[in-house]
């Protein structure tokens, strides 16, 4: 076993190529839980937490470019809080301060848990993920990134190097249902992002399917029902109620140790209405 600490993306990719079967270590908040518990055996480890080009956020024209190893603590603050507020709200619900100081956006993506807090936001905002490996870089829309519970398009030898998040003008929110407010894994979660220029509504759902889900039919329907202004939108209350039902129809929840399918569908209905109400006005 070896532990490699590269200082560039190029060196990290070379290390992964030289050590087939190596595990990528970012913040460690998912990986080390499994290692401590003996559920995960390690061959070689490539630790990407100290690669300068992977950490940080920059505003590039009309999108935020977020390095793969950027921590949630960083995502809580500007410029993310100013330009993608739903992502900052979601970041703030992750674990504890200690966890947010370590856990990374790229790690949340690569772990690909249906409950990952950043993932519904990335769907709602239409973000894309840059994955790099020995064969080069590719950019994958967030909606195509997940292929199953804890499975993504990231192949052995590849890394999540960046996430491109479009800057949208309009209200955004992230709501999460769990057994308590702090340090909780979502039983169901929802992100909403209104785009006042494109006159669209984006939704992302967490913990209610094998992968994070969108609700394109409900979003298209409500965009057609809303009365749009330059600085906001108005929606009739009966349409808000209907919207909740329509979003819940996009959910594909199951019964598991954390909750039931019925409760999750109910939670999505309520949270979709609440999220939309907060955006109206």
């Amino acid at each position: 076993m070896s532990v490699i600490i590269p200082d560039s993306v190029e060196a990290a990719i070379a290390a992964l190529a030289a050590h087939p079967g190596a595990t990528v270590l970012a913040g460690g908040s998912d990986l080390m839980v499994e290692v401590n518990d003996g559920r995960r055996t390690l061959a070689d480890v490539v630790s990407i937490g100290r690669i300068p080009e992977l950490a940080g956020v920059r505003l590039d024209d009309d999108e935020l470019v977020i390095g793969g190893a950027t921590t949630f603590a960083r995502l809580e603050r500007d410029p993310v809080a100013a330009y993608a507020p739903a992502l900052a709200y979601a970041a703030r619900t992750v674990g504890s301060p200690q966890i947010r100081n370590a856990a990374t956006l790229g790690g949340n993506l690569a772990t690909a848990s249906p409950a990952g807090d950043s993932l519904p936001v990335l769907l709602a905002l239409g973000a894309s993920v840059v994955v790099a490996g020995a064969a080069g870089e590719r950019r994958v829309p967030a909606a195509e990134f997940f292929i199953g519970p804890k499975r993504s398009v990231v192949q052995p030898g590849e890394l999540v190097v960046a996430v491109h998040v479009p800057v949208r003008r309009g209200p955004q929110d992230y709501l999460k249902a769990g057994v308590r407010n702090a340090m909780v894994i979502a039983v169901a979660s929802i992100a909403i992002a209104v785009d006042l220029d494109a006159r669209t509504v984006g939704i992302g759902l967490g913990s209610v399917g094998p992968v994070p889900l969108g609700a394109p039919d409900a979003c298209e329907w409500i965009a057609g029902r809303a009365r749009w202004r330059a600085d906001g939108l108005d929606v009739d209350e009966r349409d808000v109620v209907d919207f909740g039902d329509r979003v819940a129809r996009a959910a594909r929840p199951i019964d598991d140790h954390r909750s039931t399918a019925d409760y999750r569908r109910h939670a999505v209905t309520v949270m979709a209405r609440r999220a939309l109400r907060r955006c109206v006005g």
Partner: protein
Amino acid sequence: MSETYALHVNGKDHPVTDAWLGESLLYVLRERLGFPGAKAGCEQGECGSCSVLVDGTLVCACLVLAAASVGVEITTVEGLQPDARGAVSEVQRAFVETGAVQCGFCTPGLIVAVHALLERDPEPDDLAIREAISGNLCRCTGYGRILEAVGVAAAKRREAAR
């Protein structure tokens, strides 16, 4: 499967020999380097009892791979007062004097978390204090006296800095 590497803990280099490279920083600190201050509670980042500073940032030592921590500055509760061996910090004294310590298991993690808070925010309000210790579970005190201790420590530190 084993190798030798060095960790920089509380201002000094400490060799780690014949260790499995998959060990957490918490395990290495406690079982190999003789720093038992960080406590092994949940070992999954939920309880905060193993809180340490890595390059000044508060993290759970149980979620850090020790062998990936070569070349960074690790500070444990034992190293918060590097100049005065055996002395206690204002934060530690405030915990004792306000009765914020009962069984004591969560105390070292809380002390490190409060130090991290007061380093970046010398005048935290109640919400900031509650947020800062939200990753540290205490099952004895009900937190009232811990919150009081943080207030006392913050005031003492400001006084000392004046």
